[in-house]
């Protein structure tokens, strides 16, 4: 594929990083509950990133932990995990499910949060939403404007959970995070046990964490 094509792909990776933490949120009275939840959560995260202390790696720690809390709040990693594992999820014991979803969350947080060094003026606009017939699956469409002006569509799939709304998939330029991991995991699970899969995810998360610390 031509390199020009690949640059958009590149932007997608960065976008995914930002998808986890960054959306400029705007108050909007007419917003649907799912959108409000997303906006509110992200405003708080954004404030952490805009904090001058965040730019300095030495003082980033506590802010980073607060961001992680917020991400854990809005992203439901059990839902993420169930969908990435697919039909085999029901064959996992509850303990295995817990272990797996913890490891997977760790992997996602380490890889993508590590990409954010600070706020560079990225902006996000909510450009629409769609829902299924029952109204219990909503996709919030956003457009992320990078600092160089490149625009990347980032969509958040959301569902009701514990009286609120949570995100269960992020789609950057048409590539679903869940579906991509799902093919990987299904391939691995054909030859490996759930515990082995969890171990692999854990190893990868550890690598990402160490790489992040070394940087």
């Amino acid at each position, binding site marked *: 594929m031509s390199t020009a094509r*690949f*640059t958009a792909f590149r932007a997608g990776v960065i976008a995914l990083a930002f998808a986890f933490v960054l959306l400029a949120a705007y108050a909007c009275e007419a917003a649907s509950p799912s959108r409000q939840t997303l906006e509110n959560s992200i405003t708080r995260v954004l404030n952490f990133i805009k904090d001058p202390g965040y730019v300095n790696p030495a003082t980033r720690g506590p802010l980073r932990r607060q961001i992680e809390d917020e991400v854990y709040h809005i992203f439901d990693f059990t839902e993420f995990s169930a969908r990435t594992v697919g039909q085999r999820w029901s064959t996992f014991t509850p303990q295995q499910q817990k272990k797996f979803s913890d490891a997977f969350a760790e992997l996602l947080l380490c890889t993508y949060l590590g990409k954010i060094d600070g706020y560079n003026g990225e902006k996000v606009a909510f450009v629409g*939403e769609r829902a299924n017939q029952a109204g219990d699956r909503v996709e919030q469409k956003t457009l992320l404007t990078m600092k160089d002006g490149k625009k990347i569509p980032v969509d958040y799939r959301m569902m009701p959970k514990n009286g609120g709304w949570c995100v269960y998939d992020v789609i950057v330029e048409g590539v679903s995070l869940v579906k991509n991991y799902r093919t990987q995991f299904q391939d691995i699970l054909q030859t490996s046990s759930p515990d082995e899969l969890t171990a692999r995810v854990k190893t990868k998360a550890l690598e990402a964490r160490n790489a992040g610390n070394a940087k």
Partner: protein
Amino acid sequence: MLSSTFAGRFLPLALALLLGLAVLHVPAGAKASQQPTAAQRPGAVTARVNVAKPAGTKDAVPSAVYGQRGGGLPTTGIFVRKKRSLEQQVTASIDELEELDDYASGEPQLIADPIEPWNRFWFGFNDIFYLYVANPAYRFWETVTPRQLRTGISNVFRNLLFPMRFINNLLQFRFKEAGVEFGRFIVNSTAGLGGLVDIAKHKKTIVPVHPEGEDFGQTLGRWGFGHGFYIVWPFIGPSSVRETFGRAGDYFLYPAFWASYAIHPWYVPTGIQTGFFFNDLDDVLPTYFDLKKAAVDPYIMMREAWVKHRAVQVAR
């Protein structure tokens, strides 16, 4: 993944033709068992996204956010204005590919991969090449050239690839888009000092034209051809039977091909073109390393992401 003519001048073409023959000999049974690829799905080949007004949607309250329509109760259908920007067009075409489902059904992999062990070998080979050859070389290039120069070279190359984008627009019957490409080429070649400056970049066009442009692989996809199966090429990276034909077709429109009639010996233009591809590696390598870092099985992740990304490009 990486685009280059490292493989030489005639190699891609020869290989493509060889492969084409191989495909013809795939037994009928084997073909039937192949998974439907993304491009074979109904949405992928549609030339234009239908802008149907969602049923039962009352006019949305204009929100304060960038004057965009937002909010409202969850609607059925895509929520866009009739005159859509480029980005909206992209998201809408993604919707066509992607059902808003709950992933309840076990979705099969996006592309058949009968030669996976072979592909994995070349994936590993490329990985080492990117990490230990291409990456250090590019880092060196970055330190000895200013960013403006690299961007300028990149613009010149983009301008030289105009015939590829133009003809593929025509082949897809997208005449307005072809016109836009033509206009950009003229403006950039003259006022833009032979393409060095992309002054047409921010000019408003009659139809939105994605900067990535069209290529023959996308044309084949638009015509309804599926991928066939997945192939990892040395140096170049992810490809498929269709994309190999696509690349072979584009090869005739690459600048080095026609320049080689005027400039001798042939390896001079080819070498220069390889240099152009190399100069464009800017974001490619970091992206590759990022993706690899996030993946549990990098081979599968690249395969699926690439197929999905191509499907989006074909659809828009």
